[in-house]
């Protein structure tokens, strides 16, 4: 049988391949934060590594001292306690001042990085991000183009199957990290985001971009990004927003600027204008929707049934609907 010929090593490589398709995304057994594809993500990574290294060194010193003490000063080996060694002002000063210095060493670059990450000036385009239960809406401000971005159908089907097998999930490498309509963005362009929400607090996060920002109903938050490499970058909602919080991912497709211009033009031509305030699903949205078991549960539990992928009602009504 062919299968018997595959070495274990070969199988491991094959098992990893689906994740290669995730491009700049997480990998199995991942230990550390990624560097990402923006200056901001690099700032986050560098700040993280500096703090981590300092903590590891302090930990190593302190735990080594403890280990040494536990070994050297064992009662079972007849150690005699030095009961006069009970205080030392010199030591207290030393181990107050040295940590202060270490904190300053961490705080100074962190402050510079934070100031840079907050600087949304001189951006070349603006995208409005709106979080809703349980999807994202992206509007290219000034271009009259809006996209509604929902969990992809295959993921939605698999997550509703309580008997889903590992093989089925392995066969869908972007499970829960894929959407029907990704946010397409140009590389090497400073893009400003204005972020809000329709109903409850959500949070927009793509690790490869290096930041997250809460999407809060009634507020508009600002952020910016400048993606250096084309690719597909995946993220998730990062603020508990109800039952489908885990099922409203984010996909950013970063493309060369010319390709973006072409794409944007085609979107305008296709008439992807922002929805009217009543927020009915866009025309041409003819996907089959299976009945969500959660919706059945809702009715049985006496809750308001909420269709799984429907846009939310206007904020004030939803908040008082109970």
């Amino acid at each position, binding site marked *: 049988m062919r299968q018997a010929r595959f070495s274990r090593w070969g199988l491991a490589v094959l098992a990893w391949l689906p994740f290669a398709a*995730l491009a700049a995304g*997480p990998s*199995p*057994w*991942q*230990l550390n*934060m990624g560097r990402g594809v923006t200056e*901001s993500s690099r700032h*986050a990574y560098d700040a*993280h590594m500096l*703090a981590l290294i300092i*903590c590891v060194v302090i*930990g190593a010193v302190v*735990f080594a*001292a*403890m280990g040494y*003490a*536990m070994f050297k*000063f064992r*009662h079972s080996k007849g*150690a005699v*306690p030095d*009961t006069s*060694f*009970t*205080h030392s002002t010199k030591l207290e000063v030393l*181990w*107050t001042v040295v940590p202060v210095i270490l904190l300053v060493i961490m*705080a100074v670059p962190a402050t510079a990085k934070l100031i840079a*990450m907050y600087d949304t000036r001189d951006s070349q385009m603006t995208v409005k991000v709106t979080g809703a239960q349980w999807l994202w809406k992206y509007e290219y401000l000034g271009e009259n183009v809006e996209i509604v971005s929902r969990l992809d159908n295959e993921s939605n089907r698999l*997550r509703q199957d*309580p008997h*889903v097998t*590992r093989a089925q999930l*392995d066969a869908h*490498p972007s*499970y829960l*990290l894929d959407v029907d309509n990704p946010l397409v963005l140009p590389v090497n362009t400073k893009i400003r985001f204005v972020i809000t929400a329709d109903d*409850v*607090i959500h949070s927009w996060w793509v690790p490869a971009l*290096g930041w*997250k*920002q809460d999407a*809060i*109903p*009634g*507020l508009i*938050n600002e952020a910016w990004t400048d993606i250096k490499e084309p690719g597909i970058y995946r993220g*998730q909602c990062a603020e*508990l*927003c109800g*039952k489908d919080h*885990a099922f409203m991912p984010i996909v950013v497709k970063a493309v060369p600027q010319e390709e973006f211009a072409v794409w944007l033009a085609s979107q305008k031509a296709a008439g992807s204008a922002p929805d009217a305030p009543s927020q009915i699903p866009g025309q041409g949205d003819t996907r089959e929707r299976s009945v969500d078991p959660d919706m059945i549960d809702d009715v049985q*539990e006496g*809750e308001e049934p909420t269709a799984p992928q429907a846009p939310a009602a206007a*904020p004030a009504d*939803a*908040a*008082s609907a*109970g």
Partner: protein
Amino acid sequence: MSTHTATADHHHDAHDHRQSFVDRWFFSTNHKDIGTLYLLFSFVMFIIGAAMSVVIRLELAVPGLQHVSPHFFNQMTTMHALVMIFGGVMPAFVGLANWMIPLQIGAPDMALPRMNNWSFWILPFAFAMLLMTLFLPGGGPGGGWTLYPPLSLQFGQATAFTIFAIHMMGISSIMGAINVIATILNMRAPGIDLLKMPIFCWTWLITAFLLIAVMPVLAGAVTMLLTDKFFATSFFNAAGGGDPVMYQHIFWFFGHPEVYIMILPAFGVVSEIIPTFSRKPLFGYQAMVYATAAIAFLSFIVWAHHMFTVGMPLGGEIYFMFATMLIAIPTGVKVFNWVTTMWRGSISFEAPMLWSIAFVILFSIGGFSGLMLAIVPADFQYHDTYFVVAHFHYVLVTGALFGIIAAVYYWWPKWTGRMYNETAAKFHFWWTMVFVNLLFFPQHFLGLAGMPRRIPDYNVVFADWNLVSSIGAFGMFVTPFLMFGILFHSLKKGAIAPARPWESARGLEWTVPSPAPHHTFATPPVIRDGDLAHGDVSH
């Protein structure tokens, strides 16, 4: 020996007022019995909270949604936290305070014994109300223990009962804190100056001030949620002119001191145990007292580090980053002092010491991840991920809970007059060490890899560490039962404990017999040299 004076009242118990079971346990005015009630209650709550975490880790063991609906999963995460924080950790520390503060300061009881009893008895009712919400139509609260609006206002009746339960728990805590302060400030035996007082009493004195300061703030925050939901106010509804972020500020103004409320008594416990088993006084007692006070003060001015991604102005973010980093200083001072207490000591490794040493190491790891979280550019990647979950479980489980377990093993002989089996206790310790680290350490990796919090399902790429973590959880679920078995066995078969089972233990509690008589120090003890841990030291 001062034991003579301290046990003069022992005679009273011989012909004591025969209390019925109901009188003794429902209408108690005895700090020892009330302490026992709190500890038993907290033990049951820990098991309930742990069962919820088993449901969580069962669903998260492998990718795919196999066992529970997402809405129920959210109820589990919400209730797990509420039960553990308000039903597990806080009552356990109040139980320890009740048992030990009067004994340590030579007082006959707490200052306000009837209020003490009421403080306890509110809790079973509060938690019955809270847990009952799981059975309401629509289920229990599912918006996280932090109850952020507008989400927390979407949950029907559950929110109302959760808020009522929180009010009851808050009243219990405030009354308990008043009792602790009144007792410590007014009822110390002559000779126990504040700066000679056991450090456990110091940490509880400071904790009590924190409780009185912030529990009313929580009450205010959840009351505003209640009125927003039922009485058409708009505190947190932007459409009505309010602000959802204001809730977060108010909540975390309570929430940050709350986490120090949960750890300071553990610092006190460990500061009692490490000197005993190092056969050497606590290093830097005064520095430890001032460091604890500094931590408490700083805890009021750092709350927004829980909100770095909410869209605060740059100046606010920078201020809270610096202030939060500052807390590392007094905390580090405490760690260094514990290590130096062991240095040049004569160390033995009975169970209380094992738990305390593990506390110092693992709480420090939790502290390191806390320092990393304070760095805002990095926090943009950590916030609301499993990195945060790892951080707070290290400081709460291997921190606060290990402190509680250490205290129980340490003072068990005093409470019951029996020694637990040391070999079994060591087994309990090492079993826990393996599984608690399997459970929580990989969660750092999951957070760094990009796994958000509060999700019941995830991409296959996160599967490996999640399985390791779930195995850790299943192993941990065994541990409360293991501990119960060890302690229950000791009640029947344990060796009889002397008044001072740990040869180098200092403090007035060790001058009374084991088990401690129902009433102790009816008259104030005469303090002799060597009775107190810090009584006759010049600093």
